[in-house]
């Protein structure tokens, strides 16, 4: 096992930041740790990295509590990227190589053109790629990434995920923290946290499986959503009509019929955001 929390709990005074949390990351697996701000993600990761001790339970990387030796096998890319912005990509790599004692690597093809540019002058997508290359330089067995593609355009994001998937296919275990579907859908497994506890875990399909939403396909979406909201339902407008998370299709149908509206009422599986809302209450 690369990383493992077993019934881990962390108190800060009277506040329980992490409450009886268990999960693990295996070699070659990409695990998404999801949660709102304050859900306990950061504390869980700080415990994994040995920056905080659990109040009870066990937290291990590579089969033992974090130590200087085991941390040498971890690559970490924080949201702020942790690069020296007034140094070039090459200089950042050389610095990291000195710290970890490895031969500095050359940049892969599409980053090569930016390798001798200072980080502050790189576009964000390239900057993130460089941060990955630097964090992967010492060939870590565990990669911890905080919202790794935040702020990057569609193609840049696809290329970042290419790098992450390639690392996982080479056997690296990856732990990603995020609260966006664009990132969650790239993970093999998700752990959803709320108020310090794990509220759902499994593949994306499993995590969203517990919830549904009623959909109304209609070109009179303004009228329909107004009607449903006035009836006290939590309805919102989407590209194809109106959506009522956790709604009752019969009730919606009845309201529409009573108002003389004909529209196609269906039931869809919940989105990740809707699942967050349902499980966070």
């Amino acid at each position: 096992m690369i990383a493992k929390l077993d019934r881990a709990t962390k108190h800060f005074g009277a506040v329980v930041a992490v409450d009886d949390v268990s999960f693990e990351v295996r070699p070659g697996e990409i695990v998404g740790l999801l949660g709102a701000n304050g859900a306990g993600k950061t504390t869980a990761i700080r415990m994994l990295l040995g920056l905080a001790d659990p109040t009870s339970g066990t937290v291990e990387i590579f089969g033992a509590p974090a130590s200087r030796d085991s941390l040498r096998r971890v690559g970490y890319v924080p949201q702020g990227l942790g690069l020296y912005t007034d140094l070039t990509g090459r200089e950042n790599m050389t610095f990291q190589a000195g710290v970890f004692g490895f031969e500095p690597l050359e940049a892969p093809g599409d980053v090569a053109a930016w390798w001798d540019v200072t980080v502050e002058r790189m576009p964000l997508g390239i900057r993130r790629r460089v941060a990955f290359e630097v964090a992967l330089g010492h060939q870590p067995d565990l990669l911890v990434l905080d919202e790794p593609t935040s702020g990057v355009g569609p193609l840049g994001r696809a290329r970042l995920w290419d790098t992450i998937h390639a690392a996982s296919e080479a056997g690296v275990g990856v732990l990603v923290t995020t609260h966006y579907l664009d990132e969650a859908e790239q993970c093999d497994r998700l752990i959803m946290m709320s108020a310090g506890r794990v509220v759902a875990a499994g593949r994306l399909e499993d995590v969203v499986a517990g919830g549904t939403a009623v959909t109304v396909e209609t070109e009179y979406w303004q009228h329909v959503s107004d009607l449903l909201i006035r009836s006290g339902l939590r309805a919102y407008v989407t590209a194809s009509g109106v959506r009522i998370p956790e709604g009752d299709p019969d009730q919606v149908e009845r309201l529409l019929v009573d108002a003389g509206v004909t529209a196609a009422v269906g039931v869809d599986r919940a989105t990740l955001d809707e699942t967050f809302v349902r499980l966070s209450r």
Partner: protein
Amino acid sequence: MSWGLEHVSVDVDRAPALIDVDATVAPGEVLAIVGGDGAGKTTLARTLVGLLRAKTGVVRRPESTRIGYLPATSGVWPDLTVTENLAFVADVHRMSRQDRASRVHHLLAVTELTAAADRLGADLSGGMRRKLGFAMALLAEPDLIVLDEPSTGVDPVSRADLWALMTAAAVGGAAVVFTTTYLDEAERARSICALEAGRVLASGTLGDIAASVRGEIVDRRSDGSRSWRRGRQWRTWRPDGSIPDGSARIDADLTDLLVAASLAAEEAM
């Protein structure tokens, strides 16, 4: 009457930031502006509300008191309380005493800021500041609402409330424009404008965007740079529209379509 940009180019610090951009929105509609950092989203929002001047092209907007705007930076006065921030906006828009009280009460409740009503802007968390800025933009029931990354730093539960508020404003007749870097968020809007390096990469409904991408997107990996991953599955853009044996075309979503459109733009350069 619809609002927006027609063939608009804008320079920022003498460098082109928007190049020949079309983006319009009608009353009652929601338009998503999507792209990475540096694509031109904030420039578009600032141009639309009149904070930046177009070098060429036409910008149509209502008079400034009929515009609600949430800047990318919070737009909240740090030395005013939550209530005072809202009162200030109400004064600027000359809202009646009666309107103001019921709107403020409603918006504080749906943004869950009622308990924080007397706190200073400076003492709010990032997510709360974002929600207050959002409430300020919606307060006077403006004709055009422009929200620059309303969901950034806001947790998923609050995000759902903000989306409901935003679409309710459109249902009430406002034209709503919001920017985001997240495609699943953009995909919920009826109309989408994807920006890359200051240009429109693709725009319209999801169907319009699908029709504008040349060729096909298939479900297998192939050699070269035209493949990408969605989880453990592969996608490949086939500009010539051919479908190799063993592959099948997929019903592309916005993510796949914009990756293909970006590849096309990159290859054309």
